[in-house]
């Protein structure tokens, strides 16, 4: 599907556009969790790592795939967990009686 440059460019441009729209609405208050959360999402490259490590190809690319999986998993697991930990700390004012 992405072999077609027109399709590839369309997906890329639309995704960037959605990214700009969605992220512009995040208030500065949450910029750090936004960053660690989007960081975790950039670990999506784990998909490529799985394909490289799980294929029946050369041993070298399997090893590269293994290291890539380790890196990407640190990114994904660490990113989502630390974001969750941080977001748990943001509390509104307690209603005063």
């Amino acid at each position, binding site marked *: 599907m992405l072999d077609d440059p027109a399709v590839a460019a369309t997906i890329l441009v639309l995704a960037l556009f959605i990214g700009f729209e969605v992220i512009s609405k995040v208030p500065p208050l949450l*910029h750090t*969790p936004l960053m660690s959360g989007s960081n975790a999402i*950039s670990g999506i490259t784990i998909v490529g790592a799985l394909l490289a490590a799980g294929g029946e190809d050369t041993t070298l690319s399997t090893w590269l795939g293994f290291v890539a999986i380790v890196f990407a998993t640190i990114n994904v697991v660490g990113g989502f967990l630390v974001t969750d930990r941080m977001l748990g700390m943001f509390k509104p004012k307690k209603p005063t009686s």
Partner: protein
Amino acid sequence: MELFIQFSYLAAAVLLIMGLRMLGSPKTAPRGNIIAAIGMLVAIVATLLMKQVVSYTVIIAGVVVGSAIGGLLATRIQMTAMPQMVALLNGFGGGASTLVASAELLNYARRGESPEGIVPTAIVLGALIGGLTFTGSLIAFAKLQELMRGAPLVYPGQRVVNALLGALTVGLGIAVVLDPANLPIYGGLIAISLLMGVLLVIPIGGADMPVVISLLNSYSGLAACATGFVLGNSGLVISGSLVGASGLILTKIMCDAMNRSLTNVLFGAFGAVDESAMAAGGTDDRVAKGYTPEDAAVIFSNSRSCIVVPGYGMAVAQAQHAVRELSDVLNDKGISVKFAIHPVAGRMPGHMNVLLAEADVPYDNLVEMDDINPEFPETDVALVIGANDVVNPDARTDKGSPIYGMPILDVDRARHVFVIKRSMNPGFAGVQNPLFFNDNTMMIFGDAKGTVLALVDAVKELV
């Protein structure tokens, strides 16, 4: 099955976008993060179902090791060290993308094929951006963790060296695109991208780190996006570009908050203090007067309102809990307390908010610069803790100042200004701050945590 997998990637992309959208409000953000994580899980499971994946041992081993390290990092890291953590995670993401692009090129070589169409270009971009992100992030990590000096590292001819390396990188990149089967050239490209990452980050000073981290964040997304084109996987392209866009927006916000262009931040070596200029123009006959926490407490006893301005000094001293205690004590005395957050306070976007949230300050009390500035003239006390350049009035008035034009917090317009600072050393920008010499300013010298705690005791003493 193929169709099912494709739809799963679409579902994953939708979940990730929804999750990011929910990060827009503190109420929905925790759920948003979980939804994004589910989206990631969907993408991973869909990939495991693909027919190319035939062996699972290496995968399971990698995931176990990665989860253990990631889980440990995420649960153990201190909130003050969050900028380092994010830098490190950026690096791992970039490194993974480089490895994936390389493994894919090796697979082509083994099959005796040569990649066609946009694939060679995507391999080059993925490897290059990923490699640069990897080493660049490690240097940023080392600077933030103070494993190496945070000050800009400059040497004569630096720009020429960087320009030559840049040209060499472009040349090698084109060579790989034209002849992807030539693995030694590809190896050269990887090596030079790793070197570029180091050389581009070493001349950037500590206080410019918010920009660098945002930019590296963007790069790690763009590298993932490029590997998406390598593999013909739309899920990767969409998620990668979301992160790319997110990082670019944050980069722009950070640059605007310092009134500097991205080029100036990256290549200006700002904060490499020009000693001669300081000696010539920076002298000031006036002496800033030091006061004690007890003097400050007396002023507090006649006050109704206080705005706290935290800076990197609060983070370094781990003073956020003490600051929260002071805020409670002041509240008990009937003084209202708000926190004014400058966009570039600290070492990463939103750094101060996270620290104060950790210390249980409700987020309604954390106010952005544009919203709080009109309130300073009506405020009795502005309490500056470990911040300097973001409260320097010269940015408003002195056209000759290096930070002229940078938006600042107008603390000097409050009735009284207390500044807690370790010494009279100029801030990161290397410029003196006239705020310290104002008649309504009281300097309280000392470590942020100790001084704030002394202030707590002094205020408690007063009835």
